């Protein structure tokens, strides 16, 4: 007890001493935005959080901040494996239908109340409550019964085995004692959250910044960096200048910034650059309702004709890797070698198209039954990388005799007037790759309706079966078999031409120590980061 109470004091003393020594320099730097700030940590965000009750918001800024203030029952560790967070341990029943969570004892909410199973039960109940306007009810709706067995035991039962279930309990747990019986949409917690996490919410200056402070009673130990300042800087160029002037400590770089603008010795002495695959991929999707794309030979020919490596060099300056399927390289569901992948081979593309019945017309465009092989690639406005990608593809396809037009649309009309109505030929878009490899929402044939995510209309009974099998299996090795097979089928069918997985390119000031890059990126151990005094 004495140690835990003394420690922050000690830390404060050290920080204070550090500040006092660096005072004159502080002053000089502070004028340019302030660089040497003791152990404070400032990061920039393009967007402002919308709502800090996590089930009510869907934007990344909100989840960034909520991730520091709240905990879930489980979380992904640095190797992207599930580990206990507020749950010390859990058991899956032999039939795969029930999960029993044993909650961590002695965890306190930031206002001093004890964290118990009542909070977990409340979080579950409010999420599935029809009156709660949340986008996250779906996973919890699979739950048949949920009960708080005792203060530190929480039990759920599912109607059918559901592997993504476990990960869904990574949802931040909300404080029942502050919310129960109240209208969650009008709760002050949305602007002033109370959680169990490593940081305590302190202040929100609208449109400018959020300030969090280290939680001295955090169950894993208090974070060393405090205060944590989340600055809202809506423009990327401004953010980059703030970084260089010492106004922020960390940001994500663009490939151009990483490759061309941050190589000087001066920059490298002040900052550390990191690089690892991001959880996202970019693809060219074909509308499979159109006769032109129903022939698998045409789709395989398109993939053969596209040089993915060239796209990565041209668009990402090499900061990415080729995608062959919907998973992130290096994760457990990802298949390192996919046999059915066509690869880049223009000669084979020409042969496949000939086999499909296309003959070269006089104008250099392939023709079948009097109709030229021509389509439009649509993409959304404001994403320069996608546009460049489309242009490179256009040139490559022209060489094998395919005429491609490019159309860039504003996001809202792109979605409502074209995607939702199926009025498109090919689209160039991207998906984020979720930690759990379940593909139901994007690839199952039941998800081809309007506003659903299998908007290209891909239907393959074998794939459907494998997806259902995969989400119904808890054993990772067995699950992996399903996903390996799925990747082979997708590579064979090429409903998308999977293009690339870009790299995440964060940069952090070199005064911050303790950063250990891992498959999960760098921020997983933020609470262990420190400043050398």
């Amino acid at each position: 007890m004495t140690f835990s109470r003394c420690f922050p004091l000690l830390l404060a003393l050290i920080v204070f001493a550090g500040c006092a020594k660096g005072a004159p320099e502080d002053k000089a730097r502070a004028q340019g935005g302030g660089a040497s700030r003791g152990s404070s940590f400032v990061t920039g965000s393009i967007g402002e959080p919308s709502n800090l009750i996590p089930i009510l918001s869907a934007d990344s800024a909100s989840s960034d901040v909520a991730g520091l203030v709240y905990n879930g029952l489980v979380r992904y560790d640095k190797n992207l494996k599930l580990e206990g967070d507020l749950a010390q341990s859990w058991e899956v029943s032999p039939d795969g239908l029930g999960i029993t969570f044993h909650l961590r004892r002695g965890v306190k909410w930031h206002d001093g109340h004890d964290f118990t199973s009542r909070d977990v039960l409340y979080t579950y109940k409010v999420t599935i409550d029809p009156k709660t306007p949340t986008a996250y009810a779906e996973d919890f709706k699979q739950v048949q019964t949920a009960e708080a067995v005792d203060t530190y035991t929480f039990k759920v039962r599912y109607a059918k085995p559901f592997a993504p279930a476990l990960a869904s309990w990574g949802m931040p747990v909300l404080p029942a004692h502050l919310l129960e019986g109240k209208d969650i949409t009008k709760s002050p917690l949305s602007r002033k959250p109370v959680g169990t996490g490593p940081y305590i919410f302190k202040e929100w200056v609208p449109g400018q910044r959020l300030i969090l402070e280290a939680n001295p009673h955090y169950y894993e130990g208090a974070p060393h960096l405090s205060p944590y300042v989340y600055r809202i800087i809506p423009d990327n160029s401004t953010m980059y200048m703030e970084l260089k002037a010492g106004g922020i400590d960390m940001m994500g770089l663009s490939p151009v910034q990483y490759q061309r603008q941050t190589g000087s010795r001066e920059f490298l002495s002040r900052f550390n650059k990191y690089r690892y695959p991001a959880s996202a991929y970019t693809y060219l999707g074909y509308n499979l309702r159109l006769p032109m794309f129903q022939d698998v030979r045409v789709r395989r020919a398109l993939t053969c004709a596209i040089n993915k490596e060239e796209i990565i060099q041209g668009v990402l300056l090499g900061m990415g890797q080729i995608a062959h399927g919907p998973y992130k390289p290096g994760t457990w569901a990802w298949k390192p070698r996919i046999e059915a992948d066509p690869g880049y081979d223009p000669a084979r593309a020409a042969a496949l198209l000939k086999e499909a019945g296309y003959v070269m017309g006089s104008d250099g465009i392939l023709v079948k039954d009097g109709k030229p092989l021509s389509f439009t690639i649509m993409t959304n406005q404001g994403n320069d990388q996608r546009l460049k990608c489309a242009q490179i593809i256009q040139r490559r396809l022209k060489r094998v005799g395919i005429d491609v037009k490019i159309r860039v649309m504003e996001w809202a009309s792109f979605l409502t007037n074209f995607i939702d109505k199926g009025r498109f030929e090919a689209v160039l878009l991207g998906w984020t790759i979720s930690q759990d490899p379940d593909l139901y929402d994007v690839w199952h044939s039941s998800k081809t309706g309007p506003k659903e995510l299998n908007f290209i209309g891909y239907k393959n009974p074998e794939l459907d079966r494998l997806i259902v099998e995969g989400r119904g299996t808890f054993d990772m090795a067995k699950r992996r078999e399903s996903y390996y097979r799925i990747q082979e089928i997708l590579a064979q069918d090429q409903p998308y031409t999977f293009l690339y997985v870009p790299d995440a390119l964060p940069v952090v000031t070199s005064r911050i120590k303790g950063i250990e890059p891992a498959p999960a990126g760098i921020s997983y151990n933020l609470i262990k980061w420190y400043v050398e005094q």
Partner: protein
Amino acid sequence: MANYLIKRLLMLFPLLLGITLITFTVIHLAPGEPVEMQTAMSPKVSAQARARLREFYGLDKPLHVQYGMWLSNLAHLDFGRSFAPDNRPVLDKIKERIPITISLNVIALILEFGLALPIGILAAVHRDTLLDRAISVFVFAGFAVPTFWLALLCMYFFGVKLNWLPISGIHSLGSDALPTLARFWDLAKHLLLPISIATFGSLAGLSRYMRSTMLEVLSQDYITTARAKGVRERVVIYRHALKNALLPVITLLGFSLPALIGGSVIFETIFSIPGMGQLFYQGVMARDYPLVMGILVIGAGLTLVGNLLADLCYAVADPRIRHGRG
């Protein structure tokens, strides 16, 4: 005069109603809905969740019902709650952004008028001289340079290279702890770049306008008469000519009133200033109907009041209008 005023005031209401009806229609004609903008392409959102959100925002009701509800709330001065996930009252969101926007705009407006008018007069008095041409080049340079580009250059030079001025935002971290004077100095340093660049960009219009009205007045017979009488040139220009040349400027000032609560999106984005421009832009992008309508109604109201005030000031300033009808 009183009759005229009452008539004008009564006219404001149907005008405002018409404006709200048109804007309501236009914003609903834009493709996409708030729910869609929040949930599109998100794998975790089911059709039920979407329906639930639509119901929560009242988007499942027919359009005329939605308009009616919005209008009756407005009659009680209730602008409704934002359709963003925070679901906060629209008025709160506007209130927290209005002070910085108005202060910035007022300062910029004072600087703009304070600089553009003398520049215009100077150019007119020294018509076709080197000075006149130099002024033209200067103000048109400000007009032609893309402000975001100039802003970035200045930020790089003064912020990164020289480290004299802060780059973005309106306060330094920890400025709350400073004494009042130091806090004011901190704020002033943050606002120096945005205000000077905004002013530089807006000089052209007003100064050219001032120059041409001044030239027009200077060619009038009564100026010639005054000169012929032997009145000193200073008096001719500043007492006789300037007074008359300033009349149209009143109208311009009236038009500037609604601009006081508007902000430039690009500017606010580059300098990370949490102003009305950004709020409105985000509102439109997210199809946050109540927020967009709220800002537009306030803007429209101010425009109408501004026009009315301009007309009234005109009547006060110009005896021809005041006594014209009598």
